[in-house]
């Protein structure tokens, strides 16, 4: 059957918009005009290739955001040099939109908070979790710094139109069961390469009922399935979220009803328990209730990362944390996803709830997530984490064991010193 006779998926339609090519089919290579380019620290490695290309200017300074997040404030001389390279680059090429120490945040979160990515966009960033912005109904994808240098010079890049997996979700998430549990379940089913080079479209009544922050969590971890992008089509919630903050024109696009999907996955979340990804892969997913039986003792607990450190995540955790103490011998690290979230948590008394309990509440950064800044494990230590990856060496030593879970489940681990069911705390 000729796919061209079908309708088109969200990814195909957005790529048509940004390339000017109609009737795109998977596998077709197109040149897409970039609506937003984001660089974090890795962007420092774009500067040399950008100069070597002989580019005289950045194609559109209003479409470029620099947001440092991995080492903020600089935790080593190397990081300080990287930050300085970016500041100098921003000055030299008149790039006004840099989120630097003091108004910093995790790059994807600041893009969301300030409306930098809007429906119908093609957004690229130097971080693999750029997929998160797909929750705006946009194609958002990670690229490397040399590729970013080309984008800065030309404002476009080639893309192979991806086949699409549609994930239709119905049912109601139970008490204490979150968007994180849903995406962990999906990663467990699709596996880490199951969506390689593909687009994922989330649809169905459960997805429609999710808030924007929950959709961010969902799309964020499409990266863990190898997806090029993961999306929720823009709807009333998207438009409401972006009202007054959208930085450029919105083009809300929906998939055609007769779009051709390579694969359709149906998921019913009724009765679904909370989920945990066990070492050493995000797809090694089991129900929390099973993992609890193993009495997994934790040394460190991390509530943070672009996946789950928004104000809604912190509120949910703080409700459980209030009046309790972090277990003796456990280090509980809480790192908000942005400075705006930090300030909001301060106003709401959330920071005090955590610090009274014996947790450490840090400034916003990627923090313990990636094993290069703070919250490094000692060999053989165990961490319960709300982040997105648990590969060998992710938090430093190869042997470190990381269990991925929802923010609420991190509280139960911190309080009990073993991985536990947070629904029993409530």
């Amino acid at each position, binding site marked *: 059957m000729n796919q061209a006779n079908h309708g088109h998926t969200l990814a195909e339609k957005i790529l048509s918009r940004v390339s000017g090519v109609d009737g795109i089919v998977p596998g077709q290579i197109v040149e897409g005009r970039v609506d937003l380019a984001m660089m974090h620290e*890795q962007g420092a490695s774009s500067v040399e290739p950008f100069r070597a290309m002989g580019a005289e200017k950045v194609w559109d300074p209003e479409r470029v955001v620099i947001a440092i997040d991995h080492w903020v404030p600089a935790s080593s001389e190397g*990081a300080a040099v990287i930050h300085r390279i970016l500041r100098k680059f921003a000055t030299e090429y008149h790039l006004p939109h840099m989120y630097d120490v003091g108004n910093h945040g995790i790059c994807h979160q600041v893009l969301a908070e300030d409306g930098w990515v809007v429906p119908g966009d093609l957004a690229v960033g130097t*971080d693999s979790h750029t997929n998160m912005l797909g929750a705006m109904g946009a194609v958002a994808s990670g690229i*490397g710094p040399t*590729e970013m240098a*080309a984008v800065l010079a030309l404002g476009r890049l080639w893309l192979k139109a991806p086949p699409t997996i549609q994930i239709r979700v119905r049912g109601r998430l139970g008490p204490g069961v979150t968007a994180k549990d849903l995406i962990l379940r999906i990663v467990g089913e699709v596996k880490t390469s199951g969506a390689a080079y593909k687009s994922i479209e989330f649809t169905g009544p459960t997805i429609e009922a999710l808030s924007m922050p929950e959709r961010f969590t969902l799309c964020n971890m499409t990266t863990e399935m*190898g997806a*090029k992008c993961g999306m929720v089509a823009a709807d009333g919630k998207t438009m409401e979220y972006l009202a007054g903050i959208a930085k450029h024109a919105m083009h809300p696009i929906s998939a055609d009803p007769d779009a051709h999907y390579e694969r359709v996955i149906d998921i019913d979340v009724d009765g679904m328990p909370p989920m945990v990804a066990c070492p050493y892969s995000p797809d090694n997913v089991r129900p929390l209730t099973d993992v609890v039986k193993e009495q997994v003792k934790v040394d460190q607990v991390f509530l943070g990362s672009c996946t789950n450190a928004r104000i809604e995540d912190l509120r949910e955790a703080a409700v459980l944390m209030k009046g309790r103490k972090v277990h003796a011998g456990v280090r509980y690290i809480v790192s908000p996803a942005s400075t705006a979230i930090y300030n909001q948590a301060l106003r709401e008394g959330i920071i005090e709830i955590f610090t009274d309990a014996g947790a450490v509440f840090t400034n916003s950064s990627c923090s313990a997530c990636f094993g290069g800044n703070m919250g490094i494990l000692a060999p053989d230590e165990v961490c319960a984490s709300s982040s997105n990856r648990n590969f060998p*060496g992710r938090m430093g030593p190869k042997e470190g064991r990381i269990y991925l879970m929802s923010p609420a489940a991190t509280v139960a681990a911190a309080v009990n010193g073993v991985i536990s069911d947070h629904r029993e705390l409530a």
Partner: protein
Amino acid sequence: MQDVITGRVWVLGDDVDTDGIIGGKYLTLMDPNELKKHVFEIALPEFAANARPGDIVVAGPNFGSGSSREAAPAAIRAAGVGAVVADSFARIFFRNCINLGVTAIEANGARALFEKGDIARIEVRTGRIVNERTGRSVTFPPLPPHLLELLEVGGLVEKVRRELIAERARAPT
């Protein structure tokens, strides 16, 4: 890029992610010659000290999954690796390889052909990889023309440099 690449093989497993290629703690190292000292530290600890220029890395499926760090192929390139071959690649890693001029060959079934130390011969344009010791081979779809072109000029920097020169030549003065 050479049309035929021959080299000594290092074998990697399945789903080798970018943390296994170059750890997060090394990401502030911007000098590729520093990075290469730590390449595959987790996935193949003996590699960095023993690799020779022209060696070929052969991995299983989903090679390079995880982060967007170009430090991974930059470290591989600095180590002098002649080509990376995998049953399949993660997308950003594959793209980063080609952009840096590192020949990346997706050849399903390649991993099973080789043991450490075998000699591989890769026929890049015709799409065949041969184990010179056993004589066994697999075929693969050759890279599409736009990617071959990128490798021929040595990577994305040179390609864009030429495009910008051409653009300026076309522009009215």
